[in-house]
């Protein structure tokens, strides 16, 4: 196997607060191959954003206690001095965020903001940078890009702003694009456009993509691999088919059962939500963090933290249930709804 583009080893990000230590990310390991699309799924507070903000170097050792390794193209990003990290961020790894209104500066023209990003990393003249910015706007499907480049963010619609953010993120031809809930604030029709755009640009720019989302539907069509996070840990990871047609973790089952199915025949079909609320990250339940909400929990779950163990190939889950039970319960509770 070729060397992975990104390898995260036992990453921990803990924030000291007055109330106690918030264990936002608590020992996650994964690899991402070049050209792969990874979906990271979890509820608010599961640590999915914090993990990748740390990869981006946007959470620093001044703010949090960070342990582990983030090896990107053979370099441990956590050991890089800030000025070298600045060369990686934006140029090699870039990120787009949920809310395109707050991530663009309202006082500057859109084209100027993209050109500025280019000039930060490349020695080009202002005019060349602007030409590149216009070209990027064209490539993300913004009509009349030369006029649009001279407009301010408030003159763009939500979908157009997200396109402009993508243009900025890809303007330096990064090897890794991290999309943090890129479509949560958008209408479904626009969401479909943006996800298709990310797919297409991924091919064109030959980049790896990470899509962070709370909606298992969004990643079903666009990701090769999926990892599910809960309370700062990866509880299940696997290929797309492993997750949708054979999930092994009760939390993943809960997520799959919570989504209203478009294909259901009768209205008012009962959903099976996960009971209770996500735990506090200061007082994470002992044993498996999911046990208080898990309908299948038994004694061992309350005391012993389950390790993320592979079942077959890449498919791994962190749950004490026996493999036969997992397969049976998945068929009985999740597949039966389809």
């Amino acid at each position, binding site marked *: 196997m070729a060397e992975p583009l990104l390898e995260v080893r036992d990453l921990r990000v803990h924030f000291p607060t007055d109330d106690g230590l918030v264990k936002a990310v608590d020992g996650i390991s994964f690899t991402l191959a070049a050209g792969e699309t990874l979906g990271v799924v979890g509820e608010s507070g599961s640590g999915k954003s914090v993990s990748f903000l740390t990869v981006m170097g946007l959470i620093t050792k001044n703010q949090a206690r960070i342990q582990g390794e983030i090896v990107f193209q053979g370099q441990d990003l956590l050991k890089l001095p800030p000025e070298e990290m600045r060369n990686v961020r934006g140029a090699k790894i870039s990120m787009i965020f949920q809310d395109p209104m707050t991530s663009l500066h309202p006082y500057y023209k859109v084209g100027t903001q993209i050109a500025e990003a280019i000039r930060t990393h490349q020695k080009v003249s202002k005019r060349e940078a602007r030409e590149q910015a216009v070209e990027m706007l064209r490539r993300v499907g913004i009509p009349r890009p030369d006029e649009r480049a001279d407009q301010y963010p408030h003159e763009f619609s939500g979908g157009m702003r997200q396109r402009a953010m993508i243009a900025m993120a890809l303007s330096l031809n990064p090897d890794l694009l991290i999309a943090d809930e890129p479509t949560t604030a958008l*209408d*479904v029709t*626009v*969401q479909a456009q943006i996800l298709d755009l990310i797919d297409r640009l991924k091919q064109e720019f030959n980049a790896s993509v990470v899509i962070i989302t709370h*909606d298992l539907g969004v990643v079903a069509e666009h990701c090769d691999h999926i990892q599910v996070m809960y309370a700062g840990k990866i509880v299940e990871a696997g290929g797309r*088919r492993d997750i949708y047609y054979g999930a092994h973790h009760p939390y993943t089952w809960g997520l799959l059962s919570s989504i209203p*199915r478009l294909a259901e025949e*009768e*209205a008012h079909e009962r*959903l099976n939500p996960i009971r209770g609320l996500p735990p506090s990250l200061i007082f994470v339940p002992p044993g498996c963090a999911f046990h208080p909400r898990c309908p299948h929990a038994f004694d061992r779950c309350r005391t012993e933290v389950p390790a993320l163990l592979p079942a077959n190939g890449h498919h791994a889950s962190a749950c004490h249930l026996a493999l036969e039970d997992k397969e049976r319960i998945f068929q009985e509770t999740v597949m039966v709804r389809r």
Partner: protein
Amino acid sequence: MSVQVNERPDEAPVEERRPLVRIRGVRKLFPITRGIIFQKHIGDVHAVDGVDLDIYPGETVGLVGETGCGKSTLARVVMRLYDATEGTIEFDGRDITDLKGRELRLLRRDMQMIFQDPFASLNPRKTIGSIIGEPFRLHHTVPRNRIKAEVQQLMELVGLNPEHYNRYPHEFSGGQRQRIGVARSLALRPKLIVCDEPVSALDVSIQAQILNLLEDLQEEFNLTYLFIAHDLAVVKHVSDRVAVMYLGKIVEMAAGATLYRNPKHPYTGALLSAVPIADPDLAAQKKRIILEGDVPSPIDPPSGCRFHPRCPNAQFPKCRDEEPFLEPHHPGQVAACHFPLEDRAVIETTDAEPVH
């Protein structure tokens, strides 16, 4: 024209039942003016532009559409939070279009609203006990010394711990806050609850809890819902009938399952094909209708069919010049389109299990 569907055979035919809400020809225009002292009227935002809708007691009518299609404005017109520019609204057989003052306040007991953002719709400086009890204090339906007991009962009903009576909204999570909003809307035992994107801001697992709660309450109190959301899967799940809005007009209305299998309006088809499905095989079966561009400005809506500039099936000049009206298709289905879609145009539904 009116839109009538009877999906439940055990009930009287819909024609004989009296709708709880009857909307006829409702338009809501927001004027645009220029100038500070001498305000010159230069145009209107056509937020809702001619809508007829009946909502029957005990049913849930879903409204879907993209941002800016007028679905929230329509809900606020029904609630009498906005005055309709034209048209009439009847509630329980009574014309409420021009009710004022005391009459209007009495009417508000029967219709309540749940809002999208559970962070913005609760006053951060009040305890949740006083937030949920506020309707009692305004409408004097419960004597003062009984308010606390009533509020705690409501809290229990929606799945909140009654001991948290004296806590403030910031101490609750998003899902719990939405429960507070639900409890408040139930306080006066209304007949109609308008839910404006009640689960859009919540995580999926919490979203499912709130949807189940709303359905339980509907059964228990025989509530009627007008349920607004941009997520077609959610709307279809809770609704007996779904109305699809585009630029201020209802373009299609049908039972959810009919809409899913046989959408007639290309816009409905596009919405349907854009919904992410958490099942890769099923997702691969659906045909994509990708819409180009954004919703046009409601200040100067396109001529003829408002959808024609974005419609993949538009035929000229008819779609540009002639406005289509709602016409019946399958039982209980109406759609406003000159060239409606074939059956099963978006999703090939077979009764067989998906292949694994």
